[in-house]
């Protein structure tokens, strides 16, 4: 039974490996809440991860990401794949609450045992994802979901975190979202592997397409990649373009494996992950030791402009018995 969750991380991990949906859902919550057993469960699952094709889906709010995902999930189900979806929405900075509405467009998939959808609140994390997103993806990966879509919060130009999280990043644009000019700016457009202009039956679609086409042409100097990002027209509500996108995603996967970029991206992701964990861990240990009088004293000196923040950080670090070289 799940009730004794704290005492049986190993059993829980075993249940996840068997694809037990309730266990998957429980562990996702433990990970999101940063509960202690989460780490042990993840440790037991880690060697079973690394198989899934992780696909990031990003783009401005209202571009039709969720509707497109419905079509793509159905297509990959028809191709015999189990599909996981992690959909991230923003948390309210005021209340800490969140209204997660990505399921609305995808509820049809709920009846399919080969699909698992989880909504996640960003919980104050910037970059378009939640802090727990990468661990959530690992859980679904270990549970046997072969294609995992990660839908970011409606992203602008700075939310490029998805590119380091996913193997394939798909950027979804739509006409009339002010992207003609924004397309020329750097940001998510530089990290996309596949570009989709959704709602392409709408007015302004040609302008959006040609702006993107121009941008992609001038962006050809991508470092160390021979992949030419395709630009695909879609009308998600009618299912148009879905087949083509699914083919492009599989083609990109094949490209990654053949070119060696699959391993490269995995290595990069591992490095970033370890660095991130290390940074958070170090900071929390530092904070644990620094809480105290000198901490408060130094902070008020900074607030009163008697000490600059860089010197403050140095002084705080100097108090710590860090291992010497």
């Amino acid at each position, binding site marked *: 039974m*799940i009730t004794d969750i704290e005492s049986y991380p190993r059993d829980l991990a075993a249940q996840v490996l068997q694809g037990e*949906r*309730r266990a998957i*859902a*429980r562990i*996702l*919550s*433990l990970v*999101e*809440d940063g*509960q202690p057993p989460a780490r042990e469960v993840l440790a037991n699952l880690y060697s079973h991860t690394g198989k899934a094709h992780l696909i990031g889906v990003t783009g401005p709010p209202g571009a039709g990401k969720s509707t497109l995902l419905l079509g793509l999930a159905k297509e990959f189900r028809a191709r015999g794949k189990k599909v996981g979806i992690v959909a991230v929405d923003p*948390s*309210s900075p*005021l*209340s*800490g*609450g*969140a*209204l*997660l*509405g990505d*399921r*609305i*467009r995808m*509820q049809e998939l*709920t*009846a399919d045992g080969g699909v*698992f*959808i*989880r*909504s996640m*609140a960003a*919980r104050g994390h910037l970059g378009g994802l939640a802090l727990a997103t990468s661990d959530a993806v690992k859980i679904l990966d270990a549970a046997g979901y072969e294609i995992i879509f990660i839908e970011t919060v409606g992203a602008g130009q700075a939310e490029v975190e998805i590119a380091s999280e996913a193997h394939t990043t798909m950027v979804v644009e739509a006409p009339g979202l002010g992207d003609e000019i924004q397309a020329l700016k750097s940001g998510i457009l530089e990290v996309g592997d596949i570009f989709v202009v959704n709602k392409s039956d709408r007015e302004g679609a040609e302008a959006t397409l040609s702006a993107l086409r121009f941008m992609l042409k001038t962006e050809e100097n991508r470092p160390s990649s021979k992949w030419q990002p395709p630009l695909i027209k879609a009308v998600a509500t009618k299912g148009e373009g879905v087949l083509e996108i699914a083919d492009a995603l599989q083609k990109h996967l094949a490209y990654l494996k053949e070119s060696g970029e699959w391993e490269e991206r995995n290595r990069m992701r591992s490095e970033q992950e370890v660095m991130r964990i290390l940074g958070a861990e170090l900071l929390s240990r530092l904070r644990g030791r620094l809480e105290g009088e000198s901490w408060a004293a130094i902070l008020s000196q900074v607030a009163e402009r008697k000490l600059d923040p860089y010197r403050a950080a140095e002084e705080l670090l100097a108090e710590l018995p860090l291992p010497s070289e």
Partner: protein
Amino acid sequence: MTSHSGKIRILIAKPGLDGHDRGAKVVARALRDAGFEVIYTGLRQTPEMIAESALQEDVDLVGLSILSGAHLDLFPQIVGKLREKGLDKVKVFAGGIIPEEDISTLQKMGISAVFGPGTSTQDIIRFVKETLGS
């Protein structure tokens, strides 16, 4: 469940064939503003869709909104599906247009609370907090 250690997650769902979801959205927003994570699934949800969403999202509570009058038929089906999936601890509350005389029947069917038209969203928030001991 005495106290809740993680973030409280609530599914708001509309079973049946109602044509609009204004009430459900007002409640969803109020719960978000009270600091909860609310998963909203939209109109015309079957009991299976609601229960499976509750499972995948690992929610603590399910709030059902219904206007059509099918509550006596649909609510026990939903509670049954939740129990079938092992979600014994998930509490269900309801709102919408539900006649006074049906409330005790619904409570016997496993609905923890029924909020009629004119309920203040504060009452619902209080119910959530009391139920989960937060």
